[in-house]
């Protein structure tokens, strides 16, 4: 049947795919600015490297697949993937890390499955997970991000030399040097650090929150997370992401943490603050809500989000990796087809049967 469809913008104005992606990129800007304020030019370098390399990989692979470049290349999805990957990497990691990561995220996780819309796993997070499995020492080195005093000592040229012009052995040596210089225990996010340091039994909550000695370690983390949260609220107002995923995510994480805080006593951070540590907000509003890899039904989205929250708590408390978000999101992505199948909505007229 020859049937051509009519779509006039006079009747109903709908967003196009690249418009959605552009708005999502816009929403990351406050987070990027705050990170730039604390971590200096290194963040921008990482983002720039991963974005450029992911665009190049996408271009090469689309040429190889003989796709129409106009429709497939201009949807900005590779740019968004690059930004998210660059934000989640440690800031002073060597230059080839981001290129390897974007290679995995664009080609292995996305294009080999059939391009945008067909990938099962979130591209940015699968790239991050592969990096953290294959280069564990480099990827778990968060000492610079926690030690702002040390970062302030470094120039732009120092950062450039660390990122671009060091061999791997020199890099390891430098790491150990810096860690000797600093007063803090390295190789961990604040979450990890809390877990190791404080296992004391809590009696008074309000006094406990401020009783931690190294409170300024995670103060900037809270601000960064808050900026991502505001970006997420912007996306929610623009109706680009569904509120069900991030809120069920945060709610289930909050409940798990508060259960832990009041009953099991594994981690001694106040649960509300725990939502603002690490890259929780970025995961909740930017990575878990990636429309391709989430469930499409309403109940399914709530199940999906709460699944991620519970897994984050489990990995944070019992697992070996400090950043639990990538693994829990990948785990939840693999369950999505099952969730979709079992949470189909009732169609019109079926309930009254």
């Amino acid at each position, binding site marked *: 049947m020859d049937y051509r469809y009519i779509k006039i913008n006079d009747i109903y104005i*709908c967003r196009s795919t690249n418009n959605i992606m552009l708005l999502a990129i816009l929403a990351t800007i406050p987070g990027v600015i705050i990170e730039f304020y604390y971590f200096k030019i290194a963040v921008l370098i990482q983002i720039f490297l991963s974005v450029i390399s992911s665009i190049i990989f996408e271009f090469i692979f689309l040429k190889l697949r003989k796709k129409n470049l106009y429709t497939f290349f201009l949807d900005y999805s590779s740019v968004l993937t690059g930004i998210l990957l660059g934000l989640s990497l440690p800031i002073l990691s060597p230059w080839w890390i981001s290129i390897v990561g974007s290679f995995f995220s664009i080609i292995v996780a996305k294009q080999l499955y059939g391009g945008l819309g067909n990938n099962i796993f979130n591209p940015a997070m699968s790239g991050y997970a592969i990096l953290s499995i294959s280069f564990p020492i480099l990827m778990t080195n968060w000492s610079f991000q926690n030690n702002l005093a040390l970062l302030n000592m470094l120039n732009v040229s120092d950062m450039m030399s660390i990122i671009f012009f060091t061999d791997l052995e020199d890099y390891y040596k430098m790491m150990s040097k810096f860690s000797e210089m600093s007063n803090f225990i390295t190789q961990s996010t604040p979450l990890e650090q809390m877990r190791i340091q404080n296992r004391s039994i809590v009696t008074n909550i309000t006094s406990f929150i*401020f009783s931690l000695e190294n409170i300024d370690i995670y*103060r900037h983390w809270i601000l960064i997370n808050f900026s991502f949260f505001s970006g997420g609220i912007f996306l929610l107002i623009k109706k680009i992401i569904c509120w069900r995923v991030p809120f069920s995510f945060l709610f289930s994480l909050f409940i798990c943490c508060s259960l832990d805080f009041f009953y099991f006593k594994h981690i001694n951070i106040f649960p509300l603050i725990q939502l603002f540590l690490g890259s929780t907000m970025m995961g909740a509003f930017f990575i878990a809500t990636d429309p391709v890899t989430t469930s*499409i039904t309403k109940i399914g989205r709530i199940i999906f989000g709460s699944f991620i929250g519970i897994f984050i708590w489990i990995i944070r408390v019992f697992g070996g990796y400090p950043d639990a978000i990538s693994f829990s999101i990948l785990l939840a992505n693999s369950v999505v087809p099952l969730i979709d199948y079992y949470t189909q*909505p009732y169609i*019109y007229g079926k309930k009254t049967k």
Partner: protein
Amino acid sequence: MITLINNFKQHLFMCVNFVWVLIRLCYIHVKKIILFRKSRDLYGGIECISMKTSKSSSRLEYIPIPKKIFILVDDIIVLQKKIIVDVGQSVLLGQVLSLGYKHIAPIHSPVSGIVTKISQKKYNFFLNKRFSIINIRSDGKDTKIDSILMSNYKKFSPDEIIQLIYNSGVVGLGGAGFLSSKKLQYSIGNAHTLVVNAAESEPYITSDDCLIRNFAQEVIQGCQIIVWILKIKCVLIAIEDDKNIAYIKIKKEIKAFPNYKIYKIKRIYPSGSSKQLIKILFNKEVPLGKHSTSLGIVVFNVSTIFSIKRAVINGEPLIERIVTLSDRRLSYQKNILVRVGTPINYILKKCNINYKDNSVVIGGPITGLIIDDLSFPILKTSNNILCLELNFMDNRLESPCIRCTACSRTCPMRLLPEQLYFYSKSFDHNKSREYHINECIECGICEQVCPSNIPLLRYFRKEKLKLNEIIFKENMSKKFKKLFVSRQSRLNSSGLINENIIYSSNNLDRVLDKKVVCNTDIEYITIEKSQFMRKKELEESIARAKLKRNIE
């Protein structure tokens, strides 16, 4: 350290305050959404810009009768030999051209004149099916044929009135084209409420609004006919909230009747569909696979009721209808009374519209068809003609689906279009049937909201056609298997099975060999062969039947 802690305490207080305000804001927003949902009672739907001017619907314009008229006749009617008129015969206005068959209503001549030609044509854009077209040249006199009219309809029995409605060719003018006489017949004794559907939720269309403004009294008379036929207790008239003048006019008319009510409904796109209208008015859902009469509700379009009134009281068959004519930018929009069968280029020419730079859409902008052949006539169900610029869909390239759920959020039937798209693209028929593709009402919302510009309706229609084919084939194979089994059992019981096979084949070959030698023309041979085979088969079957009779 202490100062730092104090500082942080202050900050925390600020933070808590801010979070509390945010939570309150969110609460208000969510409450608003829930309240809004409750008030409109319809799942999904889009609030599109209406593109209607009230000036257009106040005045009804007339155009002179065209000289040539084309009338589309379905192919089934030609096969069943239901066309009464011949080429060269003179017809009068209102004379029956073809009789009805099954779900197709009888067709009447819209003008008086001479039947010049009965040709066959296939339109690519319309159903992709063969139609035979009756060409009539009008003489411009409009001499009417004598017709039966029941101006005092209360003297007649309901069956007689329904027969009259059938004979005057009234179909549902809302878009489906279902026979209204059949609808009336089904709902005798079942229905207790009549819903008059005056909500044209699709943009650009104002024909029903125009009809109510000009003929409000006749619409109410038509309602009374249906009330009398079906013994209905209460009548609901649903009208959109932006048609104020029509609302006031109907309210004036129904003052005398206590059981008539008029409702204003919100202007959301698929609220004109009967199932969605029932959901809005009664907060009930029509059960799957059943009609609205199972709830005791009959839904009729306004223009259908108007034409029923015309048929019963004035004795006029359905030969005219109101059509809206508009531009994309609304530089003009008017309602015209047109005879059924008027070619579209004639209408455009008479209204001084340059149609050569435009592409013409018949029907609404969401569900309508783009027309290639401008000699396509106005049908009974077509209510709108839209002129659009030619290059309006140049930069709309199809990009991959990113599962953003814009379509499933707005689907009024609560289907999952992205899953259906995936299955219909990969030809997974069982899965698409499992996800209820047959319940799709083809409203076209999913296309309009799709950010990737995927023509979803095209995929769904293709898939539906294929599913129908599969079901048809299954049914046919079952039927023929049954026939074959019964024949086999018959042959076994008569004991003829062996003789038939041996003798028939030998005889045929022997005779055919001689024929082949004689004739060199191949086509002739095949014709000869087939005729000979048929003759042979006939003889054999007659012999078999005789034998069977003897045995019994």
